[in-house]
């Protein structure tokens, strides 16, 4: 078989006359991009360190505890080793999840602002709401997965460890919607707050510091109000401590009885209302940014 010299053909410009997708597919493209940014996928090792480390901090302790329970638990006195409750683990996981929100969420908005890419989004067949909604959904997806995963591990272990998994499932099925709801509450509050804070900064570091400041200063004010004052006003001020409010709301969702000045139900309502206000602010803010 003989072959002649290779030739390169210039096909010239070819237009595109194939399928064009609708608004949901365009939103989906932004959502997928947001997931990749959140997890550092397709980026260098440096971009992966912070998100995966913080996500591991939320998940790995539960896995370790379950492994310990599996291998050590049967040989020890049940009173000496006890797995955390669903509500208690959320109380712990909230710290790495909040740090994840503070460190990673700004990546979804700040570079688009500082590199002025928003003007290109503005010229695409999407709205500012499509853009920020898809960005919000992508980060919330990652946070939801990170919130639910350890609870799912715990629930699965409890089912497998039960003498009768079938009857355990019948008696405890309500734990699943509870941990889904509690995880959703944490993910939605942290996502909305972190993206709103990020929308006011062009540099990621400033946004991260601002997000941590909101959480820590709020917690300090809430703690002072709760420790040193009493009455309705003090209870209301104590709600600005978001981690505590989220912890109370999570325990309320699981039906845990806690001796707290503000009931978990009120905390949950406050967080839902606050998130709606923050979300409206975020949409308004993004609309201004995108339209320039």
């Amino acid at each position, binding site marked *: 078989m003989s072959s002649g010299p290779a030739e390169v053909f210039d096909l010239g410009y070819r237009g595109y006359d194939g399928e064009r997708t609708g608004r949901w597919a365009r939103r989906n493209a932004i959502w997928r991009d947001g997931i990749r940014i959140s997890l550092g996928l397709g980026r260098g090792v440096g971009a992966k360190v912070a998100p995966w480390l913080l996500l591991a901090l939320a998940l790995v302790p539960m896995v370790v505890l379950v492994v310990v329970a599996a291998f050590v638990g049967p040989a020890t006195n049940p009173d000496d080793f006890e797995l955390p409750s669903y509500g208690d683990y959320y109380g712990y996981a909230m710290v790495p999840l909040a740090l994840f929100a503070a460190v990673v969420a700004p990546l979804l908005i700040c570079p688009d602002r500082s590199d*002025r890419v928003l003007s290109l989004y503005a*010229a695409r*067949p999407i709205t500012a709401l499509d853009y920020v909604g898809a960005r919000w959904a992508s980060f919330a997806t990652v946070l939801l997965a990170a919130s639910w995963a350890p609870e799912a591990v715990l629930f699965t272990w409890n089912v497998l460890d039960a003498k009768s998994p079938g009857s355990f499932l019948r008696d405890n099925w309500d734990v699943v919607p509870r941990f889904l709801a509690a995880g959703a509450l944490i993910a939605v509050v942290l996502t909305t707050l972190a993206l709103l804070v990020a929308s006011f900064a062009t540099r990621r570091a400033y946004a991260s510091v601002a997000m941590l400041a909101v959480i820590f200063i709020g917690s300090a004010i809430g703690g002072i109000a709760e420790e040193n004052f009493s009455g309705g006003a003090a209870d209301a001020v104590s709600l600005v401590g978001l981690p505590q409010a989220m912890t109370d709301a999570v325990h309320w969702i699981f039906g845990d009885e806690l001796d707290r000045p503000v009931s978990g139900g009120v905390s949950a309502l406050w967080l839902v209302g606050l998130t709606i206000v923050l979300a409206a602010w975020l949409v308004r803010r993004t609309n201004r940014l995108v339209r320039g």
Partner: protein
Amino acid sequence: MALLRAHELTKTFGSVRALDGVDFEIDEGITGLLGSNGAGKSTSLKLFLGLLDPDSGTAEVLGQDARSSPDVRARIGYAPEHDCLPRNVSAAEFLAYMAQVSGLPRTAARLRASDVLRHVGLFEERYRPMETYSTGMKQRVKLAQALVHDPVIALLDEPTAGLDPLGRREMLELIRRVGGEFGISIVISTHLMGDVERACDSVVVLDAGRLLRSGPVSGFTEETETLEVELLDGADAVVAALRGRGLEPKLDGRRLTLEDVSGEDYDTLRDVIVDSGAVLYRLAPARHSLADVFTRDGAEATREEAAS
């Protein structure tokens, strides 16, 4: 049907009237939106993209009100004047993403991204992070992202900004190719008359928010009734002889001009040059330039304002 149509378009920002009831249409081909800073060029582009709401009037794109639906923008490309490219992403990845956001399926978006980058001369560099690109390469990526979804019309805001003379010439040649071979109509917003004269078929001239003139570029640069003659030697003798025959030439160095020439004047000039023994280097009717539009129409506007 006009691709873009401004009807009685008015837009104010506070006390500044950026556009003052302008009417113009932009058809297929390459059109220059020409004007100095603050003329209303960028405001016009933003109104056509539906990013601004006009105070009155309408901005229509492909027969639809620009604000009617974001879907209108599926067939428009846009490259802003300023930097707008993410730094740590490759051109191939970014263009594929932008194509998807513009409504192309994933596989088609990747193919189009590579194809368009090849056409703008960045095929080899397409996987490099864009922060490593030169200004000229970034301008090409900006053009490529405006074309990646195969729009009907692309709006380019100052596409030659920041480029050296060679880069500017290459960019204008590329734009000519896009408008010709690619069949994508182009609107160039610019304050550089040379860019319009070199690359555009038509021009819309804005000045302080008002429409100065619009039409084919050839109409602005058509021949005038002034004759330009360049002589290497004997210019003074020719001028004297022409004056002797009742003509009024103006001499500027070795170049003389004759205004309002008729057919007979050409014969007279020929005879005078032959008789005087002068060496003729060039003889041609003078052409208008786009610069004349500003001086002539600007002067008329000033006179009208003074009269009113």
